[in-house]
């Protein structure tokens, strides 16, 4: 889906690179959680995936296309869609359905197709009954769901979420995560950037970024086994995860049990 080779990126005028020597591949169908402290380069890396930023060194291939060629931008961005952190700063239209239609309109699709996609995507994010609502009247969580619908309307193969839950309240966060789980089940590739470890519990792979470099890469259980490094990486162990590890150490919990509320209750309270 996406491959970065020796990628470095320095913002114009900056003294130090934001990303250095990053080698990363995203495979189709994965849910990759990209975590790290603020300033580790996560957002920069997200924007490299869909060619919003071009590496200052190294290559990035998205869906087989080189991201530094302008003629590829269209193809790349219709396959890799992105949702940004600030809900307001990605909504273009005054009415919900008009905003979802923005992407398909840019693609020049016929009106009938656009209508179909708008209805389908609003359904996927649970905003069908808000079709004609003015966008300013939506809550933060609803705005992010709208942004996701707008991205889905491009019919992408991969969705990149750049700290999309950072500005939401717990309910909003949970709503977004639920949508992501459904999308992933249907085969969407997800790249989820966050600093909250309680949001990555459905990920198939975890990449830890620190000061522009990849500090660690592996699966969930590997990540939580490396908890001694958390402080150095700027991460915080969620209490539930700590709890499940303690029980696993005392052999009261199977090693493959995921540290989510649902699974813990299923295993401990059958």
């Amino acid at each position, binding site marked *: 889906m996406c491959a970065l080779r020796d990628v470095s990126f320095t913002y114009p005028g900056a003294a130090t690179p934001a990303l250095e020597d990053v080698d990363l591949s995203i495979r189709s169908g994965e849910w990759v959680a990209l975590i790290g*402290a*603020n*300033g580790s380069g996560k957002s920069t890396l997200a924007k490299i995936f869909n060619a919003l930023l071009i590496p200052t060194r190294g290559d990035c291939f998205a869906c087989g296309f080189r991201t530094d060629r302008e003629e590829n931008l269209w193809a790349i961005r219709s396959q890799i869609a992105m949702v940004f952190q600030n809900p307001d700063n990605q909504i273009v239209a005054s009415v919900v359905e008009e905003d979802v239609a923005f992407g398909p309109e840019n693609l020049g699709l016929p009106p009938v197709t656009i209508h179909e996609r708008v209805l389908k995507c609003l359904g996927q994010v649970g905003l069908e009954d808000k079709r004609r609502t003015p966008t300013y009247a939506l*809550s933060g969580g609803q705005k992010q769901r709208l942004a996701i619908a707008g991205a889905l309307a491009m019919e992408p193969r991969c969705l990149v979420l750049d700290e999309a839950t*950072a*500005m939401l*309240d*717990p*309910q909003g966060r949970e709503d977004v995560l639920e949508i992501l789980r459904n999308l992933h089940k249907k085969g969407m590739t997800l790249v989820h950037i966050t*600093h909250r470890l*309680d949001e990555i519990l459905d990920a198939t792979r975890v990449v830890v970024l620190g000061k522009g470099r990849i500090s660690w890469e592996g699966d969930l259980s590997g990540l939580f086994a490396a908890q001694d490094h958390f*402080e150095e990486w*700027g*991460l*915080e162990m*969620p*209490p*539930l995860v*700590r*709890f499940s590890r*303690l*029980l696993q150490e*005392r052999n*009261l919990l199977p090693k493959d049990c995921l540290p989510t*509320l649902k699974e*813990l*209750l299923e295993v*401990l*309270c059958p």
Partner: protein
Amino acid sequence: MSIRVDSLCHVYHPGTPLETKALSGVDLTVEAGTWVAVVGQTGSGKSTLAQHLNALLVPTSGSVVVDGVPTTAETSALRSVRRKVGLVFQYPEHQLFAESVSEEMAFGPRNWKFTEEEIHETTRKTMSLLGLPEELLSRSPFHLSGGQKRRLCIASVLASRPDYLVLDEPTAGMDAPGRKELLGLLKGLVEEKIGVVHITHDLELALALADQVIVLEKGKTVFCGSPDSLMDELLERPIRGLCLPPILELVSGLRDYGYPVPYTLDAEMLALRLEREIRS
């Protein structure tokens, strides 16, 4: 020396089709040198309450009295209330405007007619209280890092030497290390005898820091007491409008199943107690 809120009611846009009752009879006392957490979901009225504490809003009914001065007093007394109660909004970076950090710090004190020496003194003291080095004084506030900007905004409110500080989600959007550092610094304010009102939707955070917790739901108080008594109350019955952190949800589930484990945020303690229950 306290803020007393009595049966506070607030109605937005009274008499119009958009009339909404944001607060219905809230009681609260904030003593100097204590940390009070106001917990509630979006729409519970927490932000409305915050604005009453420094007289940005006046009560529709009920009263808010700051060190003996009610917030319905006329302008001069009202301004003294505003000076005593500092208010830091959510994402306060949006209020930065000055050309230099020192100008930003001086804004509040200058409005309250501090002398230039007083301004210099309070700037120095407050910046050190919030861990901001003096070399930042000549820099533009827009060129600071995210964490520094947040601390600068809080410092600029503290520079006016308020007796109370109301913070609306001060750690919103921060990562774990930033959050820990900021809360540590804020906890130091209590030692300076400043009354802190911490508005948040994160119960975990509130419980970890507060002397007193009040829970709001749809404008009404559904709980008021110490963190320990909150945990005790949860043993008896669920509290409306309280979004429990996952670990407390787990405790709830375990208790329903039959394990008499206590309500605690401490993963170690919970693991230990559960182990004991399972093995017995």
